[in-house]
């Protein structure tokens, strides 16, 4: 039985107590998917938790025990009675006899019952589409009126269309699930899962047409739009008019116009770029071949998520600051990414490396030979080869690319960078033009050419690293001291306009 990282231990504990918040669920879920050892640890802890509950419940329960935070009776948490064999058989038999089976057909027998007040009807529905009403199911059929709290579940190979009293139309795509929350003061729907295409009539003053999902509330301002609710996010695409999208807790709100897309997830509401990505990566040209993007805002854990292609980074000695960013301690905090897929040979063709960096010192405390002027802080590149983006003790950023004869081509930034200030950096290598360039905050600082006839050095299977040149590399240790975020690798030489667009807004 090995111990897991303390932050993951805490997430395990909170999960088993049903106390994770939305963001923690996202992180924990991603970590569980990628880490078999963490899954085993969770199962061990779950077994321990259940067994502890059984053992401790056999002792005297204190008088006046408080109710749980959910208001449920404490007895709900007592261990199962199914341990006893006879009780098990009886319980199985009882549960079998009481199993609810027929209520759906009871309702279906009179689909028009009590529908005179309803304002919403099924306009069309493919075979297999169901209405869930009061815990039962009945087939959806054209003309059937919906009641408050009804949920329409479209067939997996079809769809359904709902028509509202004001003429608005909502079409459910296959396997989508939509519930009617209420029709007082407007229309309120709950898209539980799937995709709906909406053609909403202009709303009368004082009324709204809104659709909520797990992560967002879309309030319609008279428009055509599509709303997609997935397990981990909600996407809004506006065809015409405008739609306001609010986060589930109401703390954030963005309005999208025609042709715009918004995304809501556990972290809030974001405007999507033409490439379908949120945040800084969404500012890249839609055809830019983004290979990987590690935001490094994971908040907890020892895995850096790649939001583009699943190149997970293993973080060594992670320290997450109050803003949820990874703080590189200037000693040995680092991220190692295996060079699989396009990462294996990215630098053999045109490529760009982008990141944001906030330095805490010019000389990291973990430098092996602190007086050596060749001791840099390594930001992003291939392990052990001193290629990529670096920061010198003089406060200069370097973009370094090696040629096949081991000759480095280095482009340097102008002036001294300030400590504590965020800088947005881009390194662009263009083999066709035979140039290596460095950009700072969207502006070109230097371009270094190289002579014809030389190819790029082969870095073999050396991994990609962030924040450390080479763990245990002696004088080549080069730990970064500060914060690095939004590391992006792009399989093309981005142009000056592209870089300016991506880094148009100062890093926060």
């Amino acid at each position, binding site marked *: *039985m090995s111990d897991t990282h303390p932050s993951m231990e805490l997430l395990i504990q909170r999960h088993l107590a049903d106390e*994770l918040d939305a963001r923690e669920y996202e992180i924990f*879920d991603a970590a*569980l*998917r990628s880490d078999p050892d963490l899954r085993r640890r969770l199962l*061990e802890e779950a*077994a321990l938790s259940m067994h502890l509950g059984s053992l401790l419940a056999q*002792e005297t329960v204190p008088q006046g025990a408080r109710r749980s935070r959910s208001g449920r009776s404490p007895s709900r948490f007592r261990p199962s009675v199914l341990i006893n064999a006879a009780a098990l058989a009886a319980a199985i038999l009882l549960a*079998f006899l009481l199993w609810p089976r027929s209520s759906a057909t009871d309702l279906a027998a009179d689909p028009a019952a009590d529908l005179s007040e309803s304002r919403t009807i099924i306009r069309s529905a493919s075979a297999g589409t169901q209405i869930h009403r009061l815990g039962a199911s009945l087939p959806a059929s054209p003309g059937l009126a919906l009641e408050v709290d009804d949920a329409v579940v479209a067939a997996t190979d079809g769809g359904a269309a709902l028509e509202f009293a004001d003429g608005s139309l909502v079409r459910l795509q296959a396997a989508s699930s939509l519930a009617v929350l209420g029709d007082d003061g407007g229309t309120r729907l709950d898209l539980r899962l799937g995709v709906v295409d909406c053609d909403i009539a202009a709303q009368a003053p004082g009324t709204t047409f809104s659709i909520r999902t797990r992560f967002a509330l879309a309030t319609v301002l008279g428009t055509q739009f599509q709303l997609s609710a997935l397990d981990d996010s909600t996407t809004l695409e506006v065809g015409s008019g405008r739609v306001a999208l609010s986060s589930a807790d109401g703390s954030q709100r963005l309005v999208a116009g025609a042709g715009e897309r918004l995304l809501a997830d556990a972290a809030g509401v974001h405007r999507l770029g033409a490439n379908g990505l949120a945040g800084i990566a969404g500012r890249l040209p839609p055809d830019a071949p983004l290979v990987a993007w590690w935001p490094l805002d994971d908040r907890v854990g020892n895995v850096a998520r790649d939001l583009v292609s699943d190149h997970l980074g293993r973080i060594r000695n992670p320290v997450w600051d109050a803003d949820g960013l990874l703080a590189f301690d200037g000693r040995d905090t680092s991220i190692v990414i295996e060079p699989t897929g396009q990462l294996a040979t990215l630098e053999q063709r045109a490529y760009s490396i982008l990141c944001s960096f906030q330095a805490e010192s010019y000389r990291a405390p973990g430098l092996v030979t602190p007086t050596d002027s060749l001791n840099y802080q390594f930001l992003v590149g291939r392990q052990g080869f001193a290629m990529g983006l670096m920061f010198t003790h003089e406060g200069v950023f370097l973009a370094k690319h090696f040629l096949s004869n081991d000759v480095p081509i280095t482009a340097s930034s102008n002036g001294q960078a300030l400590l504590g200030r965020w800088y947005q950096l881009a390194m662009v290598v263009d083999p066709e033009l035979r140039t290596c360039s460095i950009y700072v905050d969207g502006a070109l600082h230097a371009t270094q050419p190289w002579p014809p006839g030389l190819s790029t050095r082969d870095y073999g299977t050396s991994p990609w690293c962030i924040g450390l040149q080479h763990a245990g590399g002696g004088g080549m240790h080069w730990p970064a001291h500060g914060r690095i975020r939004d590391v992006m690798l792009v399989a093309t030489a981005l142009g000056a306009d592209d870089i300016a667009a991506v880094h148009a807004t100062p890093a926060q």
Partner: protein
Amino acid sequence: MAMPPTNAEFLGVFLPIQPSLRAYLHAAVGSRAAVEELQQDVAVALWEKFSTYDQERPFLPWALGMARIQVLRWRQTQFRDRRLLSAETAELLAESAAEPANELTHRLDFIAGCLGQVGERITGLLRRHHVLGESARTIAEADDTTTTAVENALMRARKALRHCVERRSQTVAP
């Protein structure tokens, strides 16, 4: 003609794997209240389908397959704002739970002895959390301390129990 399975046959294979099933359900759904609901559904489903179980094969993976289906059905019944692990993770957890060596599950018998060593205060804390379902925040508010302090105390207590179980199991190992 094959005879229908008897209760004894069913219980003979079901009871030994019940701790693993409960651990999986707890890991997959988090909430202990949900585990209480689900484990009966799983037991019924296993009993209903028991005649289709190939007794030449291990029972646990088959039972976990049924449990996984129940978890997926349960997910569909939850309110939209209920936070859940993804369906993919629930499936991966079922695979992990089917692995032969789940060390702690096999060593649970040592916990009772270890509980006697952690002291009344810690036992009381564990009881409030694991039996009464009090959250760390609730305990912290009642005891005039911080949630972090309670969470850390719970983590330390369980870590101590794990290590105690490990020591004891090594002592009695053949």
